[in-house]
């Protein structure tokens, strides 16, 4: 068992801050010994202070924030593309996101604090693969894909396939997450999200829910529901989709879909909430969000 120590020291680091993508990939490829890619460090530093992560002196830290190409948000061929090192606060003020994907801006606005958002990055949030990562549910319902690069090439995968477990992703060794992209939603689409914490502001989610619908007041054509903090990773819950698709979105349908979604998760009890409470919230919040989306579509 670890000793109890209030706050641990950071190890002696070898700090790298490459300025271009090529330098970054070359560095990561050739680096010897232990290394970590970091962006905002808002997960990295607390993990060491609290004893969750331990590194030997001399660990290489590769700060990707020097690579301009990794930051920024653009619209490209009907897709919205965010660099992995885009800061949360940049997402919040991005005109593209505010117009095309307000659901993401809404999620980000409730994440951490303004100070943390000014350094934390979206890529860091996804790579950390916390079950409670708050950017994940909206990105999942927006059908996002993530791309990573190694010195040898690039690969893309749906975000849905990205997470493997708490803290684990499909990212291969010596790779860097580069981009997150999702199709710009059309006028017949609506997306909403919410989350619950033990207090309102500046708190880790005990559950977060995002929903997306395509269709109109008469018929739902497509639906996605995603949740955070109810499984080992943020998840898409496909079971409820069939309840909605092809149906008229009335109260009963939405309630049934919410119930189905909630019965298809298997959350755990932890410090922040019990499984029962999470399930109960899953149903309530999903139902409320679906109703709000239907309102948006009308």
């Amino acid at each position, binding site marked *: 068992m670890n000793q109890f120590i209030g706050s641990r020291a950071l190890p002696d680091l070898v700090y790298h801050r490459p300025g271009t993508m090529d330098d970054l990939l070359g560095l990561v490829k050739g680096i010897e010994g232990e290394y970590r890619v970091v962006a905002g460090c808002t997960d990295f*530093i607390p993990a060491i202070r609290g004893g969750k992560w331990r590194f030997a002196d001399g660990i290489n830290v590769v*700060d990707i924030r020097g690579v301009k190409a990794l930051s920024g948000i653009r619209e490209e061929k009907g897709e919205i593309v965010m660099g992995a090192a885009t800061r949360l606060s940049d997402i919040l003020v991005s005109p593209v996101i505010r117009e095309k994907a307000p659901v993401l801006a809404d999620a980000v606005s409730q994440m951490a604090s303004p100070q943390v958002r000014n350094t934390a990055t979206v890529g860091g949030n996804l790579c950390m693969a916390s079950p409670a990562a708050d950017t994940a549910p909206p990105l999942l319902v927006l059908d996002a894909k993530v791309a990573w690069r190694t010195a040898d090439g690039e690969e893309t995968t749906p975000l849905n396939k990205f997470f493997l477990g708490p803290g684990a992703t499909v990212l291969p060794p010596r790779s860097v997450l580069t981009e997150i992209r999702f199709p710009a939603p059309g006028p017949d689409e609506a997306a909403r999200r919410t989350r619950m914490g033990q207090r309102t502001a500046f708190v880790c989610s005990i559950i977060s829910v995002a929903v997306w619908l395509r269709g109109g007041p008469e018929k739902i054509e497509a639906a996605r529901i995603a949740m955070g903090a109810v499984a080992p990773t943020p998840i898409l819950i496909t079971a409820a989709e069939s309840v909605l698709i092809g149906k008229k979105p009335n109260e009963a349908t939405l309630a049934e879909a919410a119930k189905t979604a909630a019965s298809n998760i298997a959350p755990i009890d932890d410090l922040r909430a019990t499984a029962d409470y999470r399930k109960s919230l899953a149903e309530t919040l999903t139902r409320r969000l679906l109703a709000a989306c239907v309102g948006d579509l009308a």
Partner: protein
Amino acid sequence: MKITVHYTINSKACDLEVDAGETLLEALRNRLKLTSVHRSCEEGECGACTVLLNGEPVNSCLMLAAAADGADILTTEGLMRGDQRHPIMDAFVDLHGMQCGFCTPGLLMTGYSLVRKANGGDLDEATIRQSIEGNLCRCTGYMNIVKAIQEAKRRKDAGDWW
């Protein structure tokens, strides 16, 4: 590993040798003796260590000193003009937005950046409260802090130097 960084700190250029494993908080407090930057949780949770980095509030405990290379940094010390208090400081004193004072430098920085960027009329209460959610205060119940930030905006609008 030692690294030489260059900051513009409180409007003064400075070159500083830091350890790669040192946070900005540690560099500011221990090397530059900018002790208004307070230390409490060291994990980004309390906001006592808030400084402005290129005009935006950040937790200096969550940032490597090396990663701030080239940045323009402002701390509470830098809000003073000689012995004259910045209007937001006056507002905090006049409206009793400070009790023990430990959270205060961090709140001044967050509040200052909020007011500096705000245009138009009065700052509404909800905006202020959300903007300072990352600055915990255990003494004031936030009431007078919110009022002081509102008042600071009024003083800025009235033409007080900023």
